[in-house]
């Protein structure tokens, strides 16, 4: 089969690999019909994630058709069109039994601090991902869901991570009616977080970024006010001014480890790899939220320590909430919201690449060329 393959930092290409096989009785093999590149894939691409091995196939956002099932699979059949949460999870450990699917303890031998994720290095379990023609899906009775007939494929692929993470991020913010919510980052996660904040009763939603096309999308897709941090001297002061010097009631940090806005943090965090990423947005969140407010963190960071202003978080009495998203838990409600048009995930998709052009797709997305917000990968388009 053809698959995206990592060849070192800033180097990916498509190569021939063996079609994956059933390795556990509850495995399925899925033929991928649509995949996406996530902003967090760029952390791997840039060499930020420890134990990212040469030959690894990325991709934790994908949908496809079941090609083969293991002998213990009961809930799926060959030919089913399925969407697969980015979490690999068993459904039966202490964490899964309580709905914390992203924290599953039975699928990632390489680390206890993070669960299993498709195509996201060996630090998350060593599973090849879905930017390929076929992928192994463990615990087929637990993770995948048949795609509803009415659902658009691009909505479905966004729901496997980015959209679910945006919705989850808004929930972590514990938004109360009338709250002022600031979303840091107008990427796919931030845009859906901004839409979701309204569903939870926000009285005002402000999105911060510096890319014109993303800020425009925040205004049209999420009805948000926007701040271009390149246009203001100090974005934290701007957040204070815009909230009558209180600060936001809730800040959703949807930028993660490669946040721009501070040269020193960018260089030490993402170029020199001296931190687990650049915590610019996290620090803006801590400084920009009001005292006693809530910071929701859904931007992804690596396991290496970061220069985070924890003292300010303490002194301000903040509530910090975060997790990798337990995706499947979000789906029933999100399906309703997508069906009735309250959430519109596929609006974030701007670029479509055949799998054979994966190197081009990564560079365009990484360098944010051509107004790229979300690229999807079509394995059979060539």
């Amino acid at each position, binding site marked *: 089969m053809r698959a995206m393959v990592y*060849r*070192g*930092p*800033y*180097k*990916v290409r498509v190569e021939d690999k063996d079609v994956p096989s059933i*390795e556990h009785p509850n495995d399925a093999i899925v033929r991928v019909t649509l995949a996406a590149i996530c902003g967090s894939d760029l952390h791997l691409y840039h060499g930020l994630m*420890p*134990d990212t*091995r*040469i030959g*690894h196939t990325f991709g934790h956002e994908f949908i496809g058709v079941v090609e083969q099932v293991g002998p*213990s699979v009961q809930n799926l059949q060959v030919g089913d069109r399925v969407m697969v949460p980015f979490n690999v999870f068993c*459904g039966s450990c202490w964490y*899964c*039994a309580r*709905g*914390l*699917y992203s924290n599953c303890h039975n699928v990632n*031998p*390489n*680390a206890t601090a993070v669960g299993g994720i498709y195509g996201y290095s*060996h*630090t998350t*379990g*060593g599973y090849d991902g879905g930017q390929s023609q076929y992928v192994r899906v463990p*615990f087929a009775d*637990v993770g995948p869901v048949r795609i509803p007939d009415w659902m658009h494929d691009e909505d479905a692929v966004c729901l496997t991570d980015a959209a679910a993470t945006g919705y989850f991020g808004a929930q*972590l913010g*514990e938004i109360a*009616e009338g709250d002022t919510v600031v979303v840091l980052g107008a990427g796919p996660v931030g845009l859906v977080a901004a839409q979701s904040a309204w*569903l*939870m*009763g926000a*009285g005002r939603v402000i999105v911060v970024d510096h*890319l014109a096309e993303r800020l425009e999308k925040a205004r049209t897709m999420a*009805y948000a006010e926007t701040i271009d941090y390149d246009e203001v001297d100090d974005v934290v002061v701007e957040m204070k001014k815009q909230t*009558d*010097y*209180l*600060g936001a009631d809730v800040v959703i940090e949807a930028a993660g480890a490669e946040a*721009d806005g501070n*040269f020193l943090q960018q260089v030490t965090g993402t170029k020199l790899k001296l931190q687990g990423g650049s915590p610019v947005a996290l620090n803006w969140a801590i400084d920009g939220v*009001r005292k006693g407010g809530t910071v929701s963190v859904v931007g992804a960071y690596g*396991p*290496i320590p970061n220069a985070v202003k924890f003292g300010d978080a303490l002194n301000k009495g903040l509530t910090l909430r975060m997790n990798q998203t*337990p995706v499947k*838990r*979000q789906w029933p409600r*999100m399906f309703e919201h997508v069906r009735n*048009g*309250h959430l519109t995930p596929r609006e974030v998709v701007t670029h479509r690449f055949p799998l054979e052009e994966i*190197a081009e*797709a990564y560079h*365009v997305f990484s*360098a*944010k*060329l*051509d*107004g790229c917000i979300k690229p999807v990968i079509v394995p059979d388009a060539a």
Partner: protein
Amino acid sequence: MTDPDIPSAYLRDKRTPPPSREELRARIPGWGADLDPADRPSYPKLQYPADTGAHWDFPERQPGSEGREHSIEHAFVTPVFGTAQPLHGLSGAIRRYAYARFSEGRLAHWLLLIVGDRVEAWGSTLRSFASGRPVPPATGLETEFTRGGLRSRRGRSDVRHQLLDPVVVAGPWVAGAGAAVLGVRKVLRSVRG
């Protein structure tokens, strides 16, 4: 009467109340559909017992766990695991040591894994020369010309640190080439005399 110049932060209540429900519902599709915090999918944080579809108490163990690296914070190799890219060579030895010796709580664990990553990447690059299909220092760069590299970056503040990308990407190659030249010169001088 409070001085209208005093911002909300210094007063008991916000000066500007949020828009009314009616106004927000008219302007925002679905506003308030998830208004009740207790009715949101992630509330409460722990939902026991979750209906997951699992029909086992503990999953059947996947074969092949013998010798597989695992975090020493785990009691054993988890019953299901990824089998992509097993450890091999020098990078594999470095990574195996990182897993066997240091917990996830130790910085040495992660730094050794990154060293393993770089060793493997350099080895892969060198082997690619011999394979006849060398991997360039970076891929996809042609899109700088086909997808508006200059146009897309105009006025963006991140250009400042993007200028460092060529240094980060090509720096090890330049340093390696320089070291190779110096080494060859030293050998030639010693041979000559």
